[in-house]
């Protein structure tokens, strides 16, 4: 349906899955029914889900990792929509996606886009098979939303670079293999110039990974100290000095996907699973109905972004718009479900729902922070509305 009036304002075209995309959906559902039957285990919450290298390998064997990457590096040369189909099924089941998540979503994509032939040959097959885990080395103690303030420094030496600095809040660095690291390589007048991305082996000499306990006591975050770490020229990702623009492109991969409205879905599904027959009254029905309508419309918006990417578009502002609203919705659901219940949630409860609720209450504030805070996203989206 053509809307003739809102020219120039953020645009989302309605789309739907094709027959072959629906067939892929059925295939993924069948696989997950077998691997992770509903109610049989503790689901993970979004990309906070547990890391399970074995599970990631199985996905890789199915061709469901690195789906958009070139075939000659082990990828599937499939579309953003096909990747969307696989991702939403994994997240709605609370699948253990922690091991491959970052590599599959963004590191593989930036290496494919900016990397050398040797880097692609070295890293991408491992991304596609579910073997390699990547971390994102962006944040530092004094560089959060303001990434141009990074101080980790790479200094030119014979045959490469020596890196010194500290990255913080680095998810999964203790278990992953590599970290795409934003470093300062030049002190320029322009703060956005002089930044470079390096691929750092997390087991290299001079790399120390220290845990930073997450709010719920789990080990997810790390401090990564880089002390005279030698990085060969062959591990510079893209061009020296182009780290900022590459990084911006990388963040676009991080926004607008189904992970931005499904993180707390397993909590609500488990609420429904545990409810005694006949126990859910009108108030619960209204809450569940409203939540379902919201998932439905956010899914349609997110799917529309994937379709736009496949058509060659760059819906950066649209993705920011959806991420901002989706991440707030994920949190609102927790308030909504608690308003239906007379409980004081305890992590030691016998109820899996209550355990998940506790985990979600504690971790959900991160949803509106990681990958761009609400405030940054509002500012990105507002650029699409400027006249």
């Amino acid at each position, binding site marked *: 349906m053509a809307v003739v*009036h809102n020219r120039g304002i953020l645009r989302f075209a309605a789309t739907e899955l094709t027959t072959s995309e629906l067939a892929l959906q059925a295939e993924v559902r069948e696989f997950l029914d077998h691997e992770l039957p509903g109610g049989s285990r503790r689901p993970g919450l979004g990309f906070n889900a547990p890391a399970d290298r074995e599970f990631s390998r199985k996905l890789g064997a199915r061709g469901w990792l690195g789906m958009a990457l070139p075939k000659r590096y082990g990828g599937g040369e499939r579309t953003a929509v096909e990747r969307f189909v696989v991702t939403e099924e994994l997240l709605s089941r609370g699948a253990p996606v922690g091991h491959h998540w970052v590599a599959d979503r963004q590191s593989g994509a930036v290496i494919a886009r900016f990397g050398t032939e040797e880097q692609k040959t070295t890293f991408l097959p491992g991304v596609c098979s579910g073997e390699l885990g990547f971390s994102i080395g962006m944040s530092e103690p004094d560089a959060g939303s303001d990434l141009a303030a990074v101080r980790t420094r790479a200094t030119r030496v014979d045959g490469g670079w020596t890196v010194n600095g500290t990255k913080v809040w680095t998810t999964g660095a203790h278990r992953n293999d590599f970290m795409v690291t934003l470093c300062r390589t030049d002190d320029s007048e322009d703060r956005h110039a002089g930044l470079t991305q390096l691929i750092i082996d997390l087991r290299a000499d001079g790399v120390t990974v220290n845990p930073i306990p997450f709010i719920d006591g789990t080990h997810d975050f790390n401090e990564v100290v880089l002390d005279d770490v030698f990085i060969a020229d062959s591990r510079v990702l893209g061009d020296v000095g182009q780290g900022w623009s590459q990084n911006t492109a990388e963040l676009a991969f991080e926004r607008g996907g189904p992970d931005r409205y499904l993180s707390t879905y397993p909590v609500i599904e488990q609420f429904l*699973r545990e409810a005694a027959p006949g126990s859910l009254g009108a108030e619960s029905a209204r809450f*569940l109905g409203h939540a*379902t309508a919201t998932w439905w419309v956010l899914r*349609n918006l997110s799917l529309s972004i994937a379709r736009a990417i496949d058509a060659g578009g760059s819906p950066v502002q649209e993705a920011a718009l959806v991420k901002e609203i989706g991440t707030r919705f994920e949190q609102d659901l927790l308030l909504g479900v608690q308003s239906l219940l007379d409980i004081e949630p305890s992590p030691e409860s016998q109820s899996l729902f209550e355990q998940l609720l506790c985990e979600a209450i504690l971790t959900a504030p991160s949803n509106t922070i990681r990958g761009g805070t609400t405030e940054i996203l509002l500012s990105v989206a507002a650029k699409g509305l*400027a006249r």
Partner: protein
Amino acid sequence: MNNGALLDQAVGELFSREITPGVLADAERDGWSQPLWSAISEMGLPGVGLPEEHGGQGGSVADSLAVLRIAGWHALPLPLAETGLLGGWLLSSSGLPIPATPLTTVAQRDGDDLSWDGATVTGVLRGVPWARHCSHVVALVDGAVVQLSRDELTVTAATNLAGEPRDTIVCDHVTPVAWAAAGVGVDLESLRLRGALTRVCLMAGAIERVLDVTVRHTDERRQFGKPIARFQAVQAHLVHIAQQAAIASMAADVAAREYARGHAAFEVWAAKTMCGEAARIATRAAHQAHGAMGMTQEYVLHHLTRRLWSWTREYEDIGWARRIGDVVIERGADGLYPLITAGSGPRL
């Protein structure tokens, strides 16, 4: 350009030309605008999506829903949905001819008590849009579609929050000018669903316009030496309106698409639920961004926001969110995600 796009363009041009601030003000004062009705009738808009053999203009339901989107954008102060998609549909689906005059209808709600004894209609129907200015009221009552002449009814004037007529009619053994057993697929549920879908489309158009006028206003309005759109706090309002416009638009697009295919209960329920929330958030942010100017009747915003507040409640008596929730509960945990992805399908 396809036929739908040509129609959209022609309708957009007509409404832009005819629906001026003065026309909107006059229509609110008088409860009607005859010149505007003549203009939309000449273009055949009330009959779009209705079969030609019953007096319609042909075209698809999708076409007429698209016209309603544009009507919502312009705050069209006339019973376009009632004459065409609702009243015209009730008549033509039950084999009755559609008169070439303005019609109105509304689904019965709690407190209404129309009854049909096979020959005459008796009882009260409230919230009938523009009843006082329509030639006929079409009603679905006790399994029959009846066409009542306004002159046979007692009409008590009432309005909605937007100042549009939402009259009460009282029938005392009124003999219809035409009637028939309700056609296949015509019942209270399907009328409510269609009514809700008309409001979804009107609301999506209106919220898109609210975004448009707020973006313009905040760019033009200067305070503290710069356009207020330069302030982050104001930008946040703009983004929140844009989000709700995207949500309402997408909801309307998907609901209309599925309705045209024949199975859209879930989509219409969900779209009406989302448009209601979108209206609440977008109108609040838009008024905040407009300041005192938006609180006046001189400025266009109130034509949109007051209608949005009215449309939010219309065809909402059933509580669509609760209906979705009942389906969710019935299907259980394993059925939830498939419901979100597949929607109504033929089975809902």
